[in-house]
């Protein structure tokens, strides 16, 4: 439990923000590709 609270390699939410980042980067390109 203690290690979970102090493990800085896994910040809550950072993976979600990374996913959001990839979504923002790829969405415009994918939609244009689909429309083309």
């Amino acid at each position: 439990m203690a290690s979970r609270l102090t493990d800085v390699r896994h910040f809550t939410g950072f993976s979600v923000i990374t996913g959001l980042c990839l979504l923002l980067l790829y969405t415009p390109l994918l939609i244009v590709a689909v429309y083309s």
Partner: protein
Amino acid sequence: MAGQMSSVGRSASRIYDGRGALMMVPTWLTIGIFLLIPVAIMFIYSFLTKEFRGGVIWEFSIAAYDKFFFDRGLFGDAAPVIEWTYITIFWRSIWQAGLATLMCLLIGFPTAWFIATRVPQSRAVWLFLITIPYWVNLLIRTISLKFLIRDEGPLNQFLLWTGTIAEPLHMINTNFAVQLGLFYSFLPFMVLPIYSSVERYDFSLSEAAADLYASRWVTLRHVILPAVKPGIIAGCILVFVPSLGAFLSPDLLGGAKTFMIGSLIEEQFKGNAGNWPFGAAASMILLTLVMIALMIYARVQTTEGK
């Protein structure tokens, strides 16, 4: 043995001293041809006289700088008053670039941290995923973003379909659209330097902080952020400086109310109606501002290092 090593070291040092200057020649040539000469040309042009069909007349004049800062009426004979139009455009560019930098930092830091803390084999894949969209031309990416956020675009259609909104959101030609464009254009410039800093971070420091009962967020604030600060600052500079002079995002995604300094400069050199000395003067003022900001940063860094 130590004597031999020392002798080898001295010999290598002598070779380097002799050829060091010679080895720097390509670097200085590149900087000179592609940086100093163009800047010198812009500096000279900013003090020349405007030619009506574009171009310049080789007569010394400070009219371009005067036009930037002062309004002398339609015929140029009125008493000078401060010209706020261009100062407002400059101010708008600064805060737009600042906000874009902040957005990139808020998304870029967690992303860089997440990638740098994966197992070494998968880090390359994550970095690859971040950089792939940037293989596409910037113009295409900006137009695709415009296509996505327009009133009848896929994003509005999706939000209407899910019932999140009752009528289409007007996003195009707003500050938000310009922000999104700048963020989209320069995000990897924030992620990559921070990633490089985090990768070199010594995690035993965090373990030491944990031993002293620091929570993860306290460790992040007091141990990690100071340690990776050089990467964060490098990222901020790499995003802020090109954002300040960007003209593609403001032109394609913004409107008249989101006009930025890059667009102002671009207009002066486009077609026959431009004013080259004025464009050059605006460029020199922008360059001076950026250099002052970087010199303040360098001074602060030097003071902190002592």
